[in-house]
């Protein structure tokens, strides 16, 4: 509960109508897309400008009120669940596309802008913003920046971090800083821009961003390679990369995932094969043609049963759109879907796929796997029922094993979804104590009162490491 005094101060800043502490409003911001996380905030607030954000932060810092900045609540790490109460801060009123600068190839945006709206707006001008998380139709740029979101095009074009070149940030003490700028080069001081990207709202509040744009690729081609053998599909991925081809997209879907996605999308995805790779390349026509042919040959050499090129652009779009629904479509099988995004070096992808299947067997849980195979970033997804506590325990053990194997293979516990509340207990496995200490020192320097999204990234307790016999 916020005190009357705090409530009054906040109301003075944003005005009636932009502050709400009713049960209903609090409840609908008590969750995000992560299963198993729900907690009521004390109030929901909608600032209209950076100055209002700064004023809110000052009040919160003085009275020790947690702040959880939230975009559209699509994240998968419990990152925007107000686990310690406080204020959920929304950007519905700060959602403008401020500028597309065609001379410098940059876009300047407010955090509440929907990702797809940005992508469409810049593409109208013939420029390209590559990061395309599966939730791009819903997610906000602010959310993408805080989570450093990836997407289907990450393999060739990188993730959100690679496109953020300047930020306006409100620090936990209420100071407003500007980092970077419309600059291709800038080494003046520490790279705070990149530090804030992926900081999950724990260091400050992003109130404006300058994004790098690139020229639109001339052409795009998309194909599906079909396999009756998971291993062969995974081998193809490694072989494409080792043959020095970097496609835009190199996605993996196993059979259970294919079945549910087809059940929803009804676009004629194959459901009688064990796995498919969804492959896309863009660029000048001759390069695209050559790469697609080489990749098709590699897939066939690696025992793909067939390779099908999408005949039209709309067919290609349908395939990618369907792929983006994979996680939600898996909920058709069972009510709870828990997904991870353990990531390994690309050469290890086949080993990882095998390990995931062994771990599923060992703990007797159902795991479907899809993901950005070309990035080494898989999304093993456990389909379960949160009401079955015994099974939920086994699910947790299975994921602990998956994290451990990923780290053993030189990988990480999360490739793109963030640590949030969900993976915080595992972070030390990856960073070791010294790494955690370094991060804590940074957090302490920015946010000594721990008001910024508390309970995320830093766990109260690290989970005990299980020893995996592989």
């Amino acid at each position, binding site marked *: 509960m916020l005190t009357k005094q705090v409530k009054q101060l906040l109301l003075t800043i944003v005005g009636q109508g932009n502050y709400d502490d*009713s*049960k*209903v*409003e609090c*409840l*609908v*911001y*008590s*969750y*995000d*897309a992560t*299963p198993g996380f729900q907690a009521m905030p004390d109030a929901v607030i909608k600032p209209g400008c950076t100055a209002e954000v700064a004023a809110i932060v000052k009040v919160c810092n003085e009275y020790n009120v947690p702040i959880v900045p939230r975009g*559209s*609540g*699509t994240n998968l790490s419990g990152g925007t669940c107000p686990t310690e109460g406080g204020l959920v801060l929304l950007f*519905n009123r700060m959602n403008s596309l401020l500028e597309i600068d065609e001379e410098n190839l940059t876009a300047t945006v407010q955090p509440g802008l*929907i990702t797809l709206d940005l992508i469409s707006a810049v593409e109208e001008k013939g420029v390209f913003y590559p990061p395309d998380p599966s*939730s791009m*139709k*819903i997610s906000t740029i602010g959310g993408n920046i805080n989570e450093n979101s990836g997407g289907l095009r990450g393999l060739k074009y990188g993730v959100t971090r690679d496109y953020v070149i300047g930020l306006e940030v409100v620090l936990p003490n209420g100071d407003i800083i500007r980092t970077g700028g419309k600059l291709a080069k800038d080494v003046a001081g520490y790279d705070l821009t990149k530090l804030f990207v992926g900081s999950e709202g724990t260091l400050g509040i992003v109130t404006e961003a300058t994004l790098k744009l690139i020229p639109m690729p001339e052409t795009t081609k998309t194909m599906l390679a079909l396999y009756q053998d998971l291993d062969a599909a995974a081998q193809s991925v490694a072989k494409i990369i080792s043959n020095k081809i970097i496609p835009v997209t190199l996605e993996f879907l196993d059979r259970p995932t294919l079945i549910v*996605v087809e*059940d*929803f999308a009804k676009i004629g995805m194959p459901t009688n094969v064990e796995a498919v790779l969804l492959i896309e390349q863009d660029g000048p026509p001759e390069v695209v043609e050559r790469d697609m042919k080489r990749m098709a040959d590699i897939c066939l050499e690696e025992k793909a049963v067939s390779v099908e090129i999408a005949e039209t652009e709309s067919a290609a779009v349908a395939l990618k759109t369907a792929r983006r*629904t*994979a*996680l*939600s*479509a898996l*909920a*058709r099988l069972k*009510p*709870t*879907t828990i997904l991870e995004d353990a990531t390994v070096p690309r050469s290890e992808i086949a080993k990882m796929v095998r390990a995931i299947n062994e771990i599923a067997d060992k703990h007797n849980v159902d795991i479907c796997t899809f993901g950005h195979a070309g990035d080494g970033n898989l999304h093993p997804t456990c389909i379960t*029922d*949160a*009401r079955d506590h015994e099974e939920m325990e086994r699910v947790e053990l299975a994921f602990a094993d998956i994290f451990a194997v990923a780290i053993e293979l030189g990988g990480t516990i999360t490739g793109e979804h963030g640590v949030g509340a969900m993976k915080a207990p595992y972070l030390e496995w990856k960073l070791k104590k010294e790494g955690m200490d370094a991060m804590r020192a940074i957090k302490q320097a920015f946010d000594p009162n721990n008001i910024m999204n508390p309970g995320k990234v830093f766990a109260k307790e690290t989970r005990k490491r299980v020893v995996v016999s592989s």
Partner: protein
Amino acid sequence: MTTVQERETIAMQFAEKMNEDELLNCMRCGFCLPHCPTYIESGLKESHSPRGRIALMKAVADGVIEPDEDVERSLSLCLGCRACEPVCPSGVKYGHLLEEARDIIHQNKKHSYPVRTIRKAVFSGLFPHQERMQAMTSLLGFYQRSGLQYMARKTGVLNLLPDNLATMEKVLPKVPKKSEMKNRPTDLPAIGTPLKKVAFFSGCLMDTMFLETNKATLKLLQLAGCAIVIPKSQACCGALHGHSGEKAGAKQLAKRNIEAFEAEDVDYIITNAGGCGAFLIDYDHLLQGEREWHDRAIAFKNKMKDISQILVDLRFQEKVRLKLPAQSVTFQDSCHLRNVMNTSLAPRILLQSIEGIDFREMKDADRCCGSAGIYNIVESEMSMNILDSKMEHTKSTQADIVVTANPGCLLQMQLGIERENLGECTKAVHIADLLIKAVAL
């Protein structure tokens, strides 16, 4: 206002009756958000989104929050357009959850006396009785023909009505005479080779206020090769009841219709109102748990088809030459036709088959127009906001004709045209009325 006791009963019934599997099936990905008209029009308020509403229903069922006025507000502001369903990768049956929740609230809440009286008159006294619907419509006809309408408009009495009601009065169609409504054959032969035998669901509004559209529909069916039977004992589909938390009334009507139509041995049951069709096709859900009826409801449901779908299935547009003077046309989807009956391509195929027509797809044609049964009367502010956005998109098509596939949508689009003063250059019509004009007889 709900009393403490009412809230307790409502909360208890949420826990007992709401389908827990369905509530859990929503995994909160938010894919529904960009498709929800009230989420968009409310400035992206989660409490007015499908994901938010499901979370609220679950929270009430779990005892996390009370079913207070704000919960009720969130649920009553939902259009029930079900645009969230086809885009839900998890396949959550939102419409079913909403109907159950509304039923629990309305059955346990003591409405104020005037609201109670109106609900009783409408739900028990009027819609289930086709002869009363005819009488009511005749009254409207008397009003229109007697000079009363002229007087009412002249004297400015109508200005006493809320803005959109006064405008709505202007756009009501010229209704048929009572004798016309009563005298119609119950069997019509196919014209040309008979291909299918169909039963026609005439609908209470369609068969009174929009009788001309029903006549056009029947003629189109005949031309497509359908022998038609119009079961006399059919009743209102019950959608109005179902959407307003009067499930018991809806069930009674459903049973009457199932009996009326299963007595006829037909290939299909045809409607020309998306709103009715969607409710009819959901009878199996409405009657689930009633063992004797459930299977019969499934047999009924499997025969349901919209007029545009059967015309395309029977390749009407290839067999009959369709031609109109040069004009531009756009199509506003009926939400229930598209989202529940899964019919969106057929009307477009038909329209594009008419010679002389320049078909222009409207932006967000699949988004609700804000009519939604009686929503435009009870939630007029939100409805008019939604309609204003719709009219922006309509205007940018510069179409001469806006085609619809449901009486509610038709009236709402006419209302929109009237509000924007576009009456001179734009008209809204039902697809059957346009097609019959295009048939070169």
